[in-house]
């Protein structure tokens, strides 16, 4: 699980599968000769009698290394080990109680069972606290908060770097601990996240011999902590920084977590807690497993595709204290989740807002990847119109902000009028990419009295012309023109110079 420390920026992390790169170690390293010569099984040097040796991943060099760790606590569901030379941070003094009494029962209830007793024939899960080698060297960087390595579920003859136990790793890098910006809840959410991965492996890989797509595996891990700790402001921020990221394309980027979180939070809000367990129990993976799970809900007709479109509207609609669109709860995140995509403070984070990107001058909308949504906003006072033209494979909705009116399934080529603010949501409900979310032609529509749209000079000229026609002088008030212009300038943020 990737996280950002300090600045809440989206950072691309160039990590690729450790498995791929470890291939070189397995085949040629560790004393072995590659290419048919066989290889010696790598072994860890012995630890003291009070410690246990563990293989851990080095994400900088893409290799495995050994550490020694002491078991500092044993509970009803877990054993906690701390890396040699480190101490259990005070912020984690409640870790075991939290995991054993809250995270374990909540995750198993909502997702299913982990391997139990598993490869080590021990019902307890190992939580190894260590300084994960992820290259973090200072504040402001991204780091690996924790991880689950499925390689530990295999015997040594299948994986020489296996610890042969159910375990996950939690990062207690002193930089994180001393930063003060990583709270105990951050550690707990990481635990819940990683535990879902362990359950996912058991349910899909072990029991069904399948291997799920990363986007769905991560999406379910993203929603796991919300059952205990509520919606994630951090992920909402991540999402708003890159709201058009593809849901189903996983590039090992922090941005990938944003849309994954929004999707799973939406599913939790819409279908309740059991949906993920249903997905897990399907004998399929990815979108097919989601669709199969949806069919188990009585009288449900919604699909992955239809819900993706609904989600795009829910996201674009922001959030109100009640369902925004009467009779359509599918177009709003639940009130309980409190997801608000507008610019606002969320916890300690200031959200930039979904429409923070300036789209006011765009005529050709940006490309859309598979299962992604493009968001555009328009401003015109008092009213404006946009005409959206795009390929028929795209689905769009339009929100007239001034009149709080939603138009769904808008047709390519049709005009959409709005008051002050308009929002166009274009959804790509397919596994293919499109080069553009369409083109937009905008125009302002004036509903003011003709005289008010004229400049004072034009108004006087018109009045004089009329006066001549009437053969007598006429008074004319030009103040209205100044007032309207001033209102527009104030709306844009200009302030009088007095």
């Amino acid at each position, binding site marked *: *699980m*990737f996280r950002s420390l300090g600045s809440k920026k989206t950072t691309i*992390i160039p*990590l*690729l*599968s*450790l*498995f*791929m790169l*470890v*291939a070189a170690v*397995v*085949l040629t390293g560790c004393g072995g000769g590659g290419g048919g010569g066989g290889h010696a099984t790598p072994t860890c040097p012995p630890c003291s009698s009070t410690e246990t040796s563990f293989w851990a*991943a080095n*994400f900088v060099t893409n290799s495995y290394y050994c550490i020694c760790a002491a078991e500092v606590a044993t509970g009803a569901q877990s054993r906690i080990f701390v890396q040699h030379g480190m101490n259990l941070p005070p912020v984690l003094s409640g870790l075991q109680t939290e995991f054993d009494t809250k995270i374990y029962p909540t995750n198993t209830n909502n997702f299913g069972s982990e391997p139990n007793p598993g490869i080590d024939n021990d019902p307890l899960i190992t939580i190894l606290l260590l300084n994960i080698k992820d290259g973090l060297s200072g504040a402001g960087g991204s780091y*690996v908060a924790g*991880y*689950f*390595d*499925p*390689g530990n579920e*295999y015997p040594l003859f*299948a*994986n020489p770097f*296996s610890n042969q136990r159910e375990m996950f790793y939690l990062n207690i890098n002193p930089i994180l601990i001393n930063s003060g910006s990583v709270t105990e809840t951050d550690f707990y959410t990481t635990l819940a996240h990683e535990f879902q*991965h362990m359950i*996912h*492996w058991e349910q899909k*890989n072990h029991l*069904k*011999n*399948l*291997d*799920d*797509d*990363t*986007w769905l*595996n*991560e999406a379910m*891990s993203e929603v796991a902590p919300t059952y205990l700790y509520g919606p994630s402001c951090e992920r909402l921020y991540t999402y708003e920084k890159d709201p058009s990221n593809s849901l*189903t*394309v*996983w*590039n*090992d980027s922090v941005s*990938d977590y944003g849309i994954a979180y929004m999707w799973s939070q939406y599913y939790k809000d819409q279908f309740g807690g059991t949906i993920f367990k249903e997905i897990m129990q399907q*004998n*399929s*993976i*990815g*979108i*097919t*497993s989601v669709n199969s799970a949806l069919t188990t809900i009585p009288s449900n007709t919604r699909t992955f595709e239809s819900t993706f479109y609904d989600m795009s509207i829910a996201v674009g609609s922001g959030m109100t204290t009640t369902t925004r669109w009467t009779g359509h709860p599918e177009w709003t995140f639940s009130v309980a989740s409190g997801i608000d995509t507008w610019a606002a403070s969320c916890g300690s984070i200031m959200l930039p807002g979904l429409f923070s990107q300036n789209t006011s001058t765009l005529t050709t909308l940006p490309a859309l990847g*598979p299962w992604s949504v493009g968001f555009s906003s328009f401003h015109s006072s008092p009213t404006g119109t946009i005409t959206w033209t795009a390929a028929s494979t795209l689905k769009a909705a339009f929100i007239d902000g001034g009149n709080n009116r939603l138009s769904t399934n808008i047709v390519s080529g049709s005009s959409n009028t709005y008051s002050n603010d308009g929002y166009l949501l274009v959804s790509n409900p397919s*596994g*293919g990419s499109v080069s553009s979310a369409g083109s937009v032609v905008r125009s302002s529509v004036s509903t003011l009295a003709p005289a008010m749209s004229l400049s004072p000079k034009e108004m006087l000229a018109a009045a004089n012309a009329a006066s001549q026609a009437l053969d007598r002088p006429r008074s004319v008030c030009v103040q209205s023109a100044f007032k309207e212009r001033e209102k527009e300038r104030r709306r844009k943020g200009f302030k009088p110079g007095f």
Partner: protein
Amino acid sequence: MRAVPYVISACLLLTVVSSSSWAMGSNNPADMISVTGVIRVKGNAPLTRVVLVPQGEDPDRATKDRLYLVTGDLAKELMERDQNRTVTLLGTLCASPSPEYQKCITPVEIQRSGR
């Protein structure tokens, strides 16, 4: 006619040179395989992996033993450009470094079509 021995010698030399280069590397045409299928990214971050689901298999139902783990330098390119797309990989079979997969391919060439 006097040129014939030179031509034969040149051909023999070329054969030896190309054979030895194949033997040293992994590009021996005899060892090369071609697999067509859909590229997917699997597993949990940061231990994700790129796999190819062979043509004819349902990508959402194929069991692990049907998948090819993709290793080597081109895996990153496949992740960045070809997820959920059908490609043909030309490369060599490899010993899977992951216990999750039985099949493994190290591609040297990606063939894309129909884009």
